[in-house]
């Protein structure tokens, strides 16, 4: 980029740069701002004169900084512009005609192209010229108007998927007005018929400049199937260098979401115009593909819709008799398999098993009677669009199906017995086929000479018979009949599916007929003849950028035009739905060739990309501002004040950072690990009171209890966890040990809500006032009063001192009291229901309710349980042997409590054991 690429809107401002040396001298002469200092010794300074009048100089680098800042400001204000538009070049006053080939090929670079047109028009508007736009997709007589006006229409301009029609260039040439016109031709880069005509016409009226994107056009031809693999062929025009592109297969996944199902890289060898690749996909996946697309190409030519072409049909084959083991060639399905296997996926099995797989077609070979359920299911499936093909055979001929009246799943009534012609025991020669009648799906198929029929079932001549015949023999007897049923159809071949009754299954015609019936894959493009007279409804259409849109209410297209007629406003590329199938019409057909446009040497060809006009003033002014900020810092540093400022800034920064610290995220992660910890093993938990000593004792106590549990029972709790009521989820813990302390904060409402939830869902809280004075659990002790306050909002049922027969006294050990570090005060639990009675002869009352939600006592159990990491008791309990005994009892209480929590009233139920045993004995 030369210097010429830089321009200034107000160059005279640059003269101010000459003043910079003066500024240098002035800045140098002016001393730096004085520092103010407090100094008590100033008295001694009074009257002292500076020995030399030259002050300390501003340091050279600070001077340089300031000079640079000023210079940047001056240059910035002068309005530097990178790549300025040359105002003088081509400033003709002739009307400007923009010719644009707005085809799919132009879509590949459309934003750039539109920006280039916009640039041209804005220039023209500045010069006051009139302009007109001519779209070659639909040429209209150009109307010249103000360029600014035309410019407003540019955003709505989009490429058309059909590109240009062959005749449009010639038409456009004819529409050009007389007079001098300057032309800018935006080419899509593809060679077009009639280009020379239009170019000549334009050159006759004035200068022509061609703009063309440098990006080569790549396009994708419709995929074909070869040996079960999808063959993809890409075309290109323009460059000849080696290039790699990627073709993506889009389709819906089983969940119905559109996604890329496969990718295939294709490589254009140097000089090659084509690249071919094979994509091997499982049929199931291949059937899901809706379109192939060259990644990154973004135009309609790079998209190839597959329609039904890639779908392999699923055909269910069901034979009436499969018992003739070893006679393969006589199997009624043998020829069907041979005919269908290359193009369809065959399903075999029981009919009711196959129908849920929703096959595209069901072939019943000589199946006479169907069960009620089969009949219903099959009927439903046909009405939903299935194709049921039935073949006759000895069984059908012998059965009474559709004899007296037409069966739902038969197209015609059958006469009893059928007939045999040309056999050893009959007169006449085997019958050949008559040409297919109009309206038959087989119309146009060649009938081989050697196909003849020796036996068949015969249709009753009902009034509807004539319209249901789609193939007949030379003597007019129906060979194939068809009945539409809902969205589907039922087809009956009046011969067998094997070669017993006719040679039809041996011929190629058989395969073609199945194909026409859309039984086999619809891969072969529909023939012209088949399409004639049909109307195809667009389902989805492509726009110029290769985006697939719903077709909406677009009119249908006549079948004969669908495949061959050039694309245009009336025939958009897309997916069209016909009577039995969907056909894709692509921009690029199998035969399409694309070639790069060749322009005569006299025509100047320019690229689209033009370095945009970039004003640099803002950047320079920002730089000046930044330099001035640096100058402030430097000046502060020089005067020794930066430190103070820096300190303040650091404090502010720290505050801001502290505010932003990701506490929430950490807390979340912490919660998760905690939950996992708490749920992977049984965990005893205690409520954190905030009093370190009490919390440690509770933790050590639960640790000791855990050890005892592990030694003696099958409960093996993990290390205890302290629970913060405000923050932690309680649901993971079977019981909570809650030591009551004076300094404990009353939990918040949310915490109480959680606690109540916990209690209602089977949690147990062991309240311990730790003061041995709980008997009334009233205000007798400070901790008791605190307990009252703590427990007031809790949802606690009526309480009573542990009755003699409470389950807590016998869940593991038989206990009569529950000592901790203190001895023998009453422990309170949920009161037994008033109607609990002792059954005659039972030692206990029948107390079959849940676990008591709270146990309240004051015996300081945790202290009695507490052990160190090594297992030594942490607190003394009692004296000597009695003390040891008391500690043992405390442990036993703990074991009983945990058992009660974990097993509920299991032990209470044990009272029924004698009764149960007795009953079992009987």
């Amino acid at each position, binding site marked *: 980029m030369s210097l010429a690429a830089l321009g200034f809107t107000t160059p005279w401002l640059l003269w101010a740069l000459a003043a910079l040396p003066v500024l240098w001298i002035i800045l140098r002469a002016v*001393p730096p*701002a004085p520092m103010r200092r407090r100094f*008590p*010794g*100033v008295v*001694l*300074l009074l009257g002292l004169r*500076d020995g030399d009048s030259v002050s300390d100089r501003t340091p050279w680098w600070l001077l340089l900084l300031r000079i640079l800042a000023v210079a940047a400001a001056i240059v910035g204000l002068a309005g530097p512009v990178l790549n300025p538009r040359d105002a003088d070049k081509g400033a003709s006053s002739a009307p400007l005609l923009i010719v644009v080939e707005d085809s799919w090929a132009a879509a590949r670079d459309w934003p750039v192209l539109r920006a280039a047109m916009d640039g041209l028009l804005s220039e023209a508007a500045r010069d006051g010229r009139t302009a007109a736009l001519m779209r070659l997709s639909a040429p209209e007589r150009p109307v010249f108007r103000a360029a600014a006006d035309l410019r407003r229409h540019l955003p709505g301009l989009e490429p058309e998927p059909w590109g240009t029609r062959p005749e449009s260039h010639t038409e456009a040439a004819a529409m050009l007005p007389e007079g001098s016109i300057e032309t800018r031709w935006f080419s899509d880069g593809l060679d077009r018929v009639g280009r020379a005509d239009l170019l000549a016409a334009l050159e006759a009226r004035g200068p022509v400049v061609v703009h063309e994107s440098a990006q080569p056009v790549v396009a994708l031809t419709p995929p074909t199937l070869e040996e079960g693999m999808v063959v993809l062929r890409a075309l290109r025009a323009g460059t000849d260098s080696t290039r790699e592109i990627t073709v993506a297969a889009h389709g819906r996944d089983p969940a119905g979401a559109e996604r890329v199902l496969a990718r295939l890289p294709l490589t254009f060898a140097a000089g090659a115009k084509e690249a071919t690749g094979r994509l091997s996909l499982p049929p199931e996946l291949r059937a899901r593909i809706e379109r192939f697309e060259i990644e990154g190409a973004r135009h309609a030519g790079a998209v190839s819709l597959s329609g039904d072409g890639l779908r392999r049909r699923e055909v269910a084959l069901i034979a009436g008799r499969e018992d003739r083991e070893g006679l393969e060639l006589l199997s009624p399905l043998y020829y069907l398999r041979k005919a269908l296997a290359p193009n369809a996926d065959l399903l075999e099995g029981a009919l009711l098993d196959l129908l849920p797989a929703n096959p595209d077609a069901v072939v019943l070979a000589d199946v006479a009677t169907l069960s009620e359920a089969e009949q219903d299911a099959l009927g439903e499936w046909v009405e939903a669009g299935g194709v049921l093909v039935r073949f006759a055979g000895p069984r059908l001929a012998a059965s009474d199906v559709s004899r007296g009246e037409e069966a739902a799943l038969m197209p015609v009534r059958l006469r009893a017995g059928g007939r045999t012609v040309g056999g050893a025991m009959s007169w006449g020669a085997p019958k050949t086929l008559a040409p297919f009648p109009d309206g038959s799906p087989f119309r146009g198929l060649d009938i081989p000479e050697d196909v003849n029929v020796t036996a068949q079932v015969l249709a009753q001549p009902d009034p509807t018979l004539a319209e249901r015949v789609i193939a007949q023999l030379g003597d007019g007897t129906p060979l194939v009949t068809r009945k539409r049923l809902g969205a589907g159809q039922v087809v009956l071949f009046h011969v067998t599916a094997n070669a017993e009754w006719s040679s039809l299954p041996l011929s190629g015609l058989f395969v073609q007929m199945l194909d026409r019936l859309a039984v086999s894959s619809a891969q072969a493009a529909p023939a012209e003849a088949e399409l004639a007279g049909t109307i195809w409804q667009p389902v989805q259409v492509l726009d110029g950028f290769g985006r697939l849109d719903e077709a909406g209410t677009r009119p249908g297209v006549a079948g004969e035009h669908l495949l061959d007629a050039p694309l245009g406003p009336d025939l958009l590329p897309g997916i069209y739905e016909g009577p039995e199938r969907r056909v894709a019409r692509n921009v690029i057909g199998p035969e399409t060739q694309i070639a790069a446009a060749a322009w005569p040497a006299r025509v100047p060809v320019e690229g689209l990309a033009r370095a945009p006009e970039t004003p640099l003033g803002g950047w320079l002014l920002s730089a000046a501002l930044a330099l001035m900020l640096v100058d402030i810092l430097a000046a502060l540093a020089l005067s020794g004040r930066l430190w103070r400022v820096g300190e303040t800034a650091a404090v502010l920064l720290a505050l801001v950072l502290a505010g932003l610290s990701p506490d929430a995220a950490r807390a979340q992660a912490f919660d998760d690990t905690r939950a996992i910890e708490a749920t992977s093993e049984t965990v005893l938990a205690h409520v954190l009171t905030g009093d370190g000593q009490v919390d440690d004792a509770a933790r050590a106590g639960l640790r000791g209890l855990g050890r005892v549990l592990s030694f003696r029972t099958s409960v093996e709790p993990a290390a205890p966890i302290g629970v913060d009521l405000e923050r932690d989820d309680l649901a993971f813990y079977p019981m909570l040990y809650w030591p009551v302390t004076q300094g404990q904060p009353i939990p918040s409402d949310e915490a109480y809500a959680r606690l109540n939830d916990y209690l209602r869902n089977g949690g147990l809280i062991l309240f311990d006032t730790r003061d041995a004075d709980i008997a009334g659990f009233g205000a007798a002790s400070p901790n008791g009063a605190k307990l009252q306050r703590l427990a007031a909002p809790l949802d606690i049922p009526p309480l009573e001192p542990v009755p003699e027969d409470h389950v807590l006294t016998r869940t593991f050990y038989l206990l009569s009291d529950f000592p901790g570090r203190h001895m023998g005060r009453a422990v309170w639990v949920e009161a037994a229901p008033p109607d609990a009675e002792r059954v005659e002869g039972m030692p206990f009352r029948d107390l079959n309710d849940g676990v008591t939600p709270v146990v309240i006592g004051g015996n300081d159990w945790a202290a009695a349980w507490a052990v160190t990491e090594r297992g030594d008791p942490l607190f003394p309990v009692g004296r000597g042997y009695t003390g040891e005994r008391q500690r043992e009892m405390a442990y036993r209480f703990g074991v009983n409590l945990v058992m009660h929590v974990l097993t509920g009233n299991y032990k209470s139920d044990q009272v029924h054991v004698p009764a149960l045993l007795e009953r079992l004995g009987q």
Partner: protein
Amino acid sequence: MADAAPSLRARAEAETARLPPLLARAERLARTVMMGEHGRRRAGTGDDFWQYRPVQPGDSRRDIDWRRSARSDAQFIRQREWKLAQSVMIWVDPAASMRFASEKDLPDKADRARLLALAVALLLDRGGERVGMTGTALPPRRGAAQIARIAQALSAESGEDHAAPDMSGLVPHGRVLLVSDFLGDPAPVRAALTAAADRGVRGVLLQVLDPAEEAFPYHGRTIFESMAGTLTHETLKAADLRERYLARLAARKEALSALAAATGWQYGCHHTDTGAQAALLWLHSAISEGRGGA
């Protein structure tokens, strides 16, 4: 007006809150100096009880101790121990110039001056001397209450840049401790010292200086302001002034020293970056010096 009282009270509380630390620091400092009681061991004018003796002719009736006399038939006179208690008056410069510290971790001069003054007061009190503040507000007395009052009085601050020593209320032949930076006008100091010398009062001049005032580590264009902001001096090259400033400072010290010598006073200079203990020892010995001869 309504909020005057609360604000006064708040300020007073803030002030008293400052006292105990100062007192504690001063006590800690004073405790490093050990000394003994030095009573005269004979009856005389003093505060402390010495003995009862029978009334002799010539005794004034009002000297009779009636309580003691009533217990017996004879009449007694209560004699006190004759004490040659020294009266030491302290003056600490309350001016703004003292509130200067060149660095953050240095105490300002006023703080150091108060600390030294209070520590000296404690020491003297413990030694049986009477301590007071110059001026009429706090005449020399003994006792812990007096120390507290001195501590209170020491926290007074003045908005002036420099203050002249208040030499009123001097006890003849007492001793005076003047603590200041003596950077202000030397004339009042000279006048105070000569006046004191005239009344037989001797004492100690302690000049407290910040290290920055000794080193003058400044350079570049600077406007120097006095602590109260009344005086300014602008220079273009501060570094150039250094030599002349130091010369003037040395001259000032010389003048003070000479003045002290002429009036029989002692002059000492203390820097806030050195320890307070050495200064205290020097102060104590300087004040005690020649006490016996008084």
